[in-house]
Every structure is written in C-alpha cells, then in structure tokens.
C-alpha cells in the first residue's frame, strides 16, 4: 500500500436548484475539481461516482461532459455514505497501484428525485419491513432522542444545540443552503415531524455535487502546479452493520464506533489529535449521539461536552464548522465527498469565516441506510481521516 494524496477539490453551492439535474451537479463539481487540481481532465485514469437516487449511469453522463471516457467508471450507491464510498474505492485503487490519478465525485438532485416520486409526505421505503409499518428517518432518530433523554439526561435545549451551532456556522459558508442563524424558540416553533423533532431539527432536501482528485505521491510531485499543500488520506474505512449491531441500543451506534476505531487505527491518530470533524448531522440530536461512538468525548458525557460548547466553532473540537447537513444541505450522495472537500479547504486555510485556525487533521464521516435501524436496513458508516503533511 502506498500513500494517497488530494490534488484537487470542487463543490457546487448546495440548495434547491430545479434548473439543474443530478448529472449537471456532478459535471459542475467535477469541472471545478479538475481545475483546482490544475490538470487536464484527460489525465483521469479512474472514476467512482457516488449517489443514492440519480440515474444508474449518472457518473458516465456527468464525466463525458469533461471529455472523460474510455476509462473505468463505476457508480457506487451506499445511501448517505455513497460519497465516502466513492472516495474509498478510488483510494484503494491508487494505494494498491492500479492507477496514478482519478476522480471521486458525489452528486444528487433531490429536487429531481421529488419530481419522479410525486406526492407529499415523508419517505418510507415500501420494500423494507420498517417502511411498511410507517418508519421514517426522523422516526428512527426520534427514538435516539428518547434514549438520550432517558439515559443521558438530555433536554430539548441540548438536543437542539447542533442545529443552532451549525446554522450559526453556515452563515460564513457561501456554499451553504441556509445562511441565517436560528434560535431555540424558532426551532421549537417550526412544524412537528416526529415528536419531539420539528422541521428545523432536520436537514433540508438538497441538490449539489462535490468531487476530489486523488493521486499517488509521485503524481502529486509532478503535477501540483497550483502549489497546494500536501494532504494525505490517512485512513479510509467503509463498514456495514451486522445483525448483532442492529439488535443493540440506538443510543450508542456500534457501527459508528467500529468504523471510527478502524479509522483511528489505520491513521495512527488519536481522537484527541483531531482539529475538526465534518459528520452526518441529518437530525440535530443525531450529532450529539455520534460524539461518544466517534470518541469525541468519553462514554456518557455527550451532554456535558455539548453544554461546555466543546464542539462549537471556537470550541476544542469544532464539529461541522461548514454548517453540516443541517444548514449546508444534504444532497445524499454528494455529502460524503463534500465532507472530505471541507477538510481540504480547512487545511488550505480557505474556509473564511468558518476557518479552524491551524487545522491539520480532520475526520469526515457519513452514515447511510434506507431506513436507519429498521430490522432490514443495516446502516453503512464511511469515515475518512485526512492529514496535512508537515512541510
């Protein structure tokens, strides 16, 4: 195995854009990534494209517009972890010497998807046992809320804090869907979805694309014409739930813990070394529930750390400084690549108002499933740890 580096990143503005298709989003993000890398798109030897709901050859459809063809292109689908999966597949190919340079793109248009689906109401998958009973994503996470209230003494003020924090952060992010801070009162006054979750504790349905150009060390040395700092993929892990983990308490995600431990081990990084993290915060309380399994705080102390504002922009470990899914937006397949782009932006000191000073080591995590926690819907966790190499 050899080291893999990030040569370029590209991301579209997230939001609701009925004028663009999912393929448009992928093409736009990929063009930006190629330009940022400073290479000709024809250099690309391998491509992985992640999405959850776009057409089944969306990757080829997006990349042909850049003149990328005649190479292996594989579309990967792992729900919200699709983007991390695209990064992971490309990482493996470069690490094992199959290719020198490639692109990992995530894309989605939930506006396009909503047009296909038609109708109103929450999405429940009719082919999943939980979906047949009316279980939805906010339905599952309402149980996580109940467990945090019962076992960790969480209050609604605590559980809404990630939404408040991430909306605050997003006002500094020009690519975010929402740019205005929110108050607790506004969150609680928004319409109820699944008690105690209200609309403003849920991430929006979004459109967007994000892409990374990854390469070998040799390729980086030869082609880094834009003089980017050297950023290494220190760990990349994709991990799926087992039946045993599905049968456990939603209070503490065993899948997230197992994935995180594999990633820390692979990177040789202690959780205390992290300067920031971009994680799956589809629901406000979900972010809090992730702190312990990710080892951002000791077991049992997620509420204490939340109250100490440990994960705020100016805290010891800023989580979702970009605004996260809650306010940056969540175009499913693009979120995993976006989280990785976000770390790179921080390491390059290009994050503007949400810059974490001196950021050098970061973690990007997404969690995906058709229905988290349903008996037939195992969760997939994807984690990358990126590290800026000291010059």
């Amino acid at each position, binding site marked *: 195995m050899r080291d893999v580096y990030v040569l370029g990143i590209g991301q579209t503005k997230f939001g609701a854009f009925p004028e663009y298709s999912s393929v448009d989003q992928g093409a736009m993000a990929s063009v930006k990534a190629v330009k940022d890398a400073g290479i000709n798109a024809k250099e690309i030897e391998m491509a992985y494209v992640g999405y959850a709901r776009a057409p089944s050859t969306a990757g080829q459809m997006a990349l042909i517009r850049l003149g990328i063809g005649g190479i292996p292109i594989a579309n990967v689908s792992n729900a919200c972890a699709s983007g991390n999966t695209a990064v992971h597949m490309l990482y493996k190919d470069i690490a094992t010497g199959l290719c020198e340079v490639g692109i990992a793109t995530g894309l989605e248009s939930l506006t396009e998807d909503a047009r296909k689906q038609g109708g109103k*109401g*929450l999405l429940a998958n009719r082919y999943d046992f939980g979906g*047949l009973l*009316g279980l*939805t994503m906010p*339905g599952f996470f309402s*149980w996580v809320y109940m467990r945090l209230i019962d076992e960790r003494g969480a209050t609604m003020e605590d559980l809404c804090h990630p939404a408040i924090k991430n909306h605050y952060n997003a006002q500094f992010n020009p690519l975010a869907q929402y740019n205005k801070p929110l108050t607790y009162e506004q969150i609680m006054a928004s319409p109820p979805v*699944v*008690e105690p979750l209200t609309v403003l504790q849920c991430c929006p349905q979004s459109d967007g694309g994000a892409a990374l150009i990854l390469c070998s060390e040799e390729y980086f040395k030869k082609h880094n014409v834009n003089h980017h700092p050297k950023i290494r993929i220190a760990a990349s892990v994709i991990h799926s739930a087992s039946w045993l983990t599905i049968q456990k308490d*939603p209070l503490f995600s065993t899948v997230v813990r197992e994935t995180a431990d594999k990633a820390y081990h692979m990177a040789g990084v202690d959780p205390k070394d992290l300067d920031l993290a971009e994680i799956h915060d589809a629901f406000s309380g979900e972010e809090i529930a992730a702190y312990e399994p990710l080892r951002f705080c000791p077991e049992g102390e997620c509420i204490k750390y939340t109250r100490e504002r440990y994960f705020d922009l100016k805290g010891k470990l800023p989580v979702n400084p970009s605004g996260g899914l809650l306010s940056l937006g969540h175009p499913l397949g693009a979120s995993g690549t976006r989280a990785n782009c976000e770390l790179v932006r921080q390491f390059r000191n290009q994050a503007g108002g949400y810059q974490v000073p001196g950021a050098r080591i970061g973690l990007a995590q997404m969690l995906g499933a058709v229905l988290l926690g349903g008996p037939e819907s195992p969760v997939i966790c994807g984690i990358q740890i990126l590290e800026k190499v000291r010059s």
Partner: protein
Amino acid sequence: MNKQRYLRDGIIGDNNGTLSLIGHLCADCGKKSFPPFELCPYCSSENVKNVFLSNEATILAASTTRAPVPPYKPPFTLAMVDIDGEIRTIGRIEKEEQVKIKKGDKLTLKIGKLYEETEFNKQTKTNEMIDIIGYYFVPKK
C-alpha cells in the same frame, strides 16, 4: 368484506387458535430472530426453524409521527420494542392519543388490519379493496 392479505407472507401464523408472529430459532447458536430470513442473521447457519414469538413486548423508545407517511395518516405512534427479551424490532402502537407511553411499558401484540390498498382485478377489470393484515401493539392493561 374486503379481500385480505398479510403485510408479508411467512411472518404471521396460527398458534393454537391465536394468531402470532413467526420468528426463527437457530439450532446452532440458539438465538431467535425476526423477521425470518434465509439463514440465521447471527451465525449464518441453515439450521433455523420457525417458532411463534410471545404476544408480549416491552417498549425501549416510542414516538408519535405528526406528518403523513403514506398510506398512514398522522398522528400515529411507532416504537422500538423487545419481544421475548431477545428480539428488538419495531411496531405500530394503537392507542388513544392522550394515553402516554414510555420506556419499560408493557404491550400486547395484536394481529389485524393496518391499512387498505386498491388493486386492479384483471379478471373482473375492476378496482377492489384489499385489507393489509399485519401486527401492532396495544398498551397492556
């Protein structure tokens, strides 16, 4: 009377005159699972046989959905429940809205209609209503 169809084949059966849920018991690892799959989801053994599950369950967490989830109309309550102390699954809870439920509350399993579906009958060339029969829980008195 409408035609009836189970939510899914193979999950409900007649246990000495009472309709019950069917799970799998693995002869190799000894664990019970629900719904029944092709192999034991714990140890991948083929040595699984159908067993009837208890008609009693305990709530781990429950919540009320306030938005429509077709074919269900709000409000409705769903819970993560434990059956037989070893199967953690999900179920709908039928109750009066003012009845509060919480972790540790005991439930009784019922088999009955969850919703109706319209289906086109190719022979009669008419739409007919089908009752979808599944399981739900009621708070134990």
